[in-house]
């Protein structure tokens, strides 16, 4: 009994020593410090600043009005008055407008043909040409949507005028032009803000990527310093597998518990993104997410021979992982193969779960599949880490 007590005490002691060594290393090593502290603190602020304006307003367009009539001017005026489009040039021909597009003065052209009003007055269908620069999807959407809204507003005016023959009351006119009323409701991101949609995902990915970079750098340093290029040093007798893995993981976990709170609670508040997660749910999701990221990082770090190599491998994956989460390209359209690949990474489930909790206000029970997947990853990567560390320990003690 006493023997057991001694062993437990010794294990805790060793664990704490390894924890302390790793902690010291993290603070002393500038490279690790950059990725553990500086990047998670500063990068989200920078990103949020870039996307601060959230939506594209007042997209400059050129107008080619060959009709010069009351109705064509009304169309232009209404477009100009809309929040998304700004009429900056009036041109005499499409060629002139095209020239402006080449110089990037405008991102679209509204073309009103010379018979615009005549056709309408004759009771025929008139068309308005909308030319959009397709290299920017957001400006294309802004211009096209504005043109659609203005045309449908003008259409109902014209309809009311024309139907005054058949309709008897004003209400009757309204119903004839729009027998079925409808309402569109964007939910979870009511302003359709770009930053509001993309940044929460980026924040969660930053957690994983900086952890991978930091752990990889620190493991690379250890390998370069230790004899025989092994990951664990032979100098101590503290070679218990769980002590080493546990001590290191505890160190990373403590640092990232603070940073995760900052990234998931403080940053969204500062830039007023939608955050409607309850503390309990967020804690519940982020706990397995952090653990799986840490063990994933520790597992991968065994493959790193030189400390700088980790940057070459990890940095580029950030963008690929972001696309795999389904934030920009919808999840239902990701080919099966890439779906499978995406399940290897904690970020896939972390991002999906976080968006559901924080941006869509779901509870922990709504993210059950993600939650379960994160715990499975935690267990699998923990075991994998133990195996590779055991190999390293064996090699070191040889």
């Amino acid at each position, binding site marked *: 009994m006493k023997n057991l007590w001694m062993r437990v005490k010794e294990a805790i002691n060793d664990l704490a020593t390894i924890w302390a060594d790793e902690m010291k290393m993290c603070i002393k090593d500038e490279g690790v410090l950059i990725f553990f502290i500086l990047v998670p603190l500063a990068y989200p602020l920078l990103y949020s600043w870039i996307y601060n304006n959230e939506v594209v307003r007042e997209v400059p367009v050129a107008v080619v009005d060959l009709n010069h009539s009351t109705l064509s001017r009304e169309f232009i005026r209404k477009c100009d008055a809309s929040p998304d489009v700004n009429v900056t040039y009036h041109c005499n021909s499409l060629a002139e407008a095209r020239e402006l597009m080449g110089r990037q003065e405008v991102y679209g052209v509204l073309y009103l043909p010379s018979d615009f009003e005549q056709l309408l007055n004759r009771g*025929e269908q008139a068309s308005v040409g909308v030319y959009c620069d397709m290299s*920017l999807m957001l400006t294309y959407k802004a211009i096209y949507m504005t043109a659609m809204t203005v045309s449908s507003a003008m259409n109902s005016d014209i309809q009311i005028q024309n139907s005054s023959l058949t309709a008897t009351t004003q209400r009757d006119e309204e119903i004839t032009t729009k027998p079925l009323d409808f309402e*569109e409701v964007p939910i979870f991101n009511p302003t359709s803000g770009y930053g509001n949609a993309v940044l929460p995902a980026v924040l969660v990915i930053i957690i994983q990527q900086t952890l991978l970079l930091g752990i990889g750098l620190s493991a690379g340093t250890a390998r370069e310093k230790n004899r025989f290029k092994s990951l664990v040093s032979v100098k101590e007798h503290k070679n218990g597998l769980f002590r080493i893995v546990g001590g290191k993981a505890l160190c990373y976990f403590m640092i990232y518990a603070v940073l995760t709170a900052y990234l998931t609670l403080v940053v969204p508040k500062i830039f007023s993104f939608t955050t409607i997660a309850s503390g309990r749910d967020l804690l519940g999701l982020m706990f397995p997410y952090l653990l799986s990221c840490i063990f994933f990082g520790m597992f991968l770090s065994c493959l790193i021979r030189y400390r700088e190599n980790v940057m070459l491998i990890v940095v580029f994956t950030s963008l690929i992982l972001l696309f795999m989460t389904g934030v920009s390209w919808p999840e239902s359209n990701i080919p099966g193969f890439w779906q499978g690949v995406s399940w290897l990474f904690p970020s896939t489930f972390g991002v999906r779960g976080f968006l559901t909790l924080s941006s869509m206000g779901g509870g922990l029970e709504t993210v059950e599949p993600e939650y379960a997947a994160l715990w499975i990853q935690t267990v699998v990567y923990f075991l994998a880490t133990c195996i590779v560390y055991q190999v390293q320990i064996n090699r070191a003690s040889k």
Partner: protein
Amino acid sequence: MIRKILHIAARECRLMYGNTIYLFCMVLLPVFTVVFFTSLLGDGQPTELPVGIVDLDNTATTRNMIRNLDGFQTTRVVAHYSTANEARLAMQKGEIYAFLYIPKGTTEGLMSSKQPKVSFYYNGVVMLAGSTTMRDLKTICTLGSAAVGKTKLEMLGKTESEIMTFLQPIKIDLHMLNNPWANYNVYLSASMIPGLLMLFIYLLTPYSIGTELKFGRAKEWMEMAGNNPLIAIAGKMLPQTMVHLIVFYGFEFYVYHILQFPHPGGIWPILFLGLMAVLSAQAFGIFCFGLMPSLRMSMSVCSLWAMLSFSLAGATFPVFAMDTFIQGVSWLFPLRHYYQIYQICIFNGFGMEYAWINWVCMLCFMILPVFVLRNIRRAMLEYKYIP
């Protein structure tokens, strides 16, 4: 001098051959990137996006509307829910991106001209899926409305063309220039892939210079160049430039020739831009190392720069919509100029003079290393590697 350069280049080839990380970062991972994006976005447009229905009315009219919605290429009706709350829950779980809510009495209201109201809800967090499903739902509601109007007008004895004119007097004639399919593969692959290819160059350039210090080969290297940093760098970069160029041109050949991405600008801007992209990225990497002759610092700065450039290139969120200060900062990113030149000269087919300022900026990036050559020389001869 040329002999010295070739000598160093030969040495560099041996080094590259001996370190597998070069094979990975110069060839395998860039190829992986190209394959990843072009296959992920292979559909071009999202199709068959899952949409839910809350039909409390459940009549022939509403069922017809739902069937029409299901017929659209971009949406697929996957589930019917009995309450809006259930539909919202499914949306939170990510099972559907949008749902249509038809309250009880809609058909009855239509028949008796009471102007009933239906609503559709779409998820604004997944922007592309949300806006695509929104477009379809809006169309179906408008069509539903029009169908009723059409019946009424037919009753009054109007002809087909009269009815069309009545329902839509002003028609929007949309021209999506150069990408009439709104193909997202064309849109995203053209900006993301070169960004990632440049990222590898950004990182690998300081890595290859810095490892000279790290592995204690710096003095030998400078000696071969007669302590002339220009010759040393030129010789070292030459084989790398070749490989990077081959990979970059391979990417351009694949997307413009095999996948036939629109490129009305023709081959010359494509070739020039590829060359400029590789050289400016290399120059930027050399410059970073010259400023901070430490492997770790220069690589960290390069990776942060590379990641930021995806946002500041302005492909996803336009630069003119950002804060004025950020607009200024965006000029410091080679990828920004790459994207400007791409969209003006290649994608929209305007002459190269339209993007002259961006070409000049790319050239400026290429001159940058000149300012730090002395620094690199000093670093190579005097510094020691600190981990």
